[in-house]
């Protein structure tokens, strides 16, 4: 019975965590969409309120996935370092700083106008690897130095392929690297001490059990040395305080990860795509695709940069605007291209010749298809 309860509570915990994660990604997606709309001068509240849950989760997941992958890879590496013997798997502050320096230098170089300067951190990494291989104190010692440098370099190249906000990526990568790699040496030492205390307690226990103490025997727990060693192992706080600390730490980590994710999306290229929507009445509308909700498609006319140009040229400045089209009126939606500034909202005068794949039904006839059919 207690096994079933235990299993049920674990399943509930996992489901709750997954729901929480979905909610977190949802909030991230809404925040990113808010910023994108704000950057192009569009109203923010209406599209976000109309956007489908799945779409916002997709936006958030796309943005956070690479950072989660970065944290996961670095976390595995940090775990490998922490679980090693500090004498053999030596990873001190110098080694951590070396990995961070190579990574940040590579990220900055790859995001600059002269990416060929990434050769410098690559040469440093190569020199470290060759030098370590030449010295060869042990395979673990060499791996502990070379692996973080190589992983950092690889992740720098991976981050550069995202085409996001270069400075935010460099700052985010630096922060995550620094947090994990600067903590790893002290965590490694802490873990080694915990094991040493445990081994010492076991040793004293064995000694006491095998020695003849005479008529008076001190209980093991009363031995001041054992008590001191056990205190050095055990947490000094109650389990409630520990759990509160862990939850607080997790929330702070999620908050920081979210901030880095959102910052990396600011001023990205390809924020919005163009869209061509053909309606059931035969009309076609072109505009900038914003979101799709369960009952409507949202198109926009972002024009911030265009407004500035037209103000300079003295022409009339159309206001940025958003329109929603009920999905029951929509026959087909084509989203294509990349558009950092957006395109105007307009009826497509050449609807008949537009590359629609689906045509409205002719009155009294069957639906026609293909680009050659005349629109109605």
């Amino acid at each position, binding site marked *: 019975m207690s096994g079933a309860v235990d299993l049920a509570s674990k399943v509930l915990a996992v489901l709750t965590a997954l729901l929480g994660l979905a909610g977190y990604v949802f909030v991230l997606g809404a925040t990113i969409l808010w910023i994108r709309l704000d950057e192009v001068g569009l109203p923010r509240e209406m599209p976000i309120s109309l956007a489908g849950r799945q779409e916002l989760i997709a936006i958030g997941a796309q943005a956070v996935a690479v950072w989660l992958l970065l944290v996961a890879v670095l976390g595995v590496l940090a775990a490998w370092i922490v679980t090693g013997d500090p004498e053999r798997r030596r990873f001190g502050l110098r080694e951590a700083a070396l990995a961070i320096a190579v990574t940040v230098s590579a990220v900055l170089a790859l995001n600059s106008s002269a990416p060929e300067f990434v050769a410098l951190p690559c040469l440093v990494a190569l020199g470290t690897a060759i030098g370590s291989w030449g010295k060869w104190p042990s395979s673990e010692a060499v791996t502990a130095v070379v692996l973080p440098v190589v992983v950092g370099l690889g992740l720098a190249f991976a981050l550069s392929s995202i085409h996001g906000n270069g400075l935010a990526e460099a700052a985010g990568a630096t922060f995550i690297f620094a947090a994990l790699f600067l903590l790893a040496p002290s965590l490694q030492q802490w873990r080694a001490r915990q094991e040493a205390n445990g081994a010492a307690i076991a040793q004293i226990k064995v000694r006491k059990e095998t020695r003849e103490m005479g008529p008076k025997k001190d209980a093991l727990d009363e031995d001041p040395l054992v008590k*001191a060693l056990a205190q050095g192992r055990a947490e000094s706080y109650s389990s409630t305080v520990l759990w509160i600390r862990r939850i607080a730490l997790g929330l702070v980590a999620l908050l920081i990860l979210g901030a880095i994710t959102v910052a990396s999306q600011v001023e990205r290229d390809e924020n919005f795509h163009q869209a061509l929507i053909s309606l059931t009445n035969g009309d076609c509308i072109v505009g900038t695709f914003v979101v799709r909700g369960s009952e409507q498609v949202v198109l926009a006319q972002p024009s911030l940069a265009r407004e500035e140009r037209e103000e300079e040229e003295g022409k009339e400045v159309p206001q940025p605007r958003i329109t929603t089209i009920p999905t029951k009126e929509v026959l087909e939606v084509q989203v294509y291209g990349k558009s950092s500034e957006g395109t105007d909202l307009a009826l497509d005068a050449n609807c008949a010749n537009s590359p629609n794949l689906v045509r409205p039904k002719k009155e009294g006839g069957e639906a026609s298809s293909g680009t050659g059919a005349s629109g109605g």
Partner: protein
Amino acid sequence: MTIIAAGFIVLLVSLPFNHPPAIRKVAAAIVIGLGGALLAVQVLRDMTKEVEASRKPPDEHMQPEPVLVLAGVDLRDAALPGVELGRSELTDALLAGADLNATTLQASRLARADLRDADLRRADLRLSDLRGSDFRRADLRATDLRGALLTDARFEGAIYNKATNWPEGTPPPGSIRIEEASGPER
């Protein structure tokens, strides 16, 4: 580390925050990369020292084989007054702030142990290996250190009195003598 910090300063100083000029990114990348190169040289030097140290023959210890191995343990702020820890291996142990009043540590190995702020009054540290240990601000009044090895040990701010016995009769530099009207008796 200074060079890496300089690289970040190059990138961020007088910066409209989200638009660093292109040249500044390249300059920061180069400065930080050079900092990494210097760090790589230091790391490889440490590796060389480690390899050389491993090739040296092990030191001949004056101390007998330890009966209790407590190397690397964490006993910070532990209360161990009067405990018998003679012939123990406490190399690299953390004993900062521990109460070791009148503790017996005769013929023990305490190389590189952290004994900062520890209370070692009347402790018996005769014939112990204390090389590289840290005794800063420790209380060494009436401590017996005769025959102990103190090479590279640190004693800045450690206090002692006339009842303290040093290995060669002279207190190490940095330690502070306390004149008491009536010190603790042995």
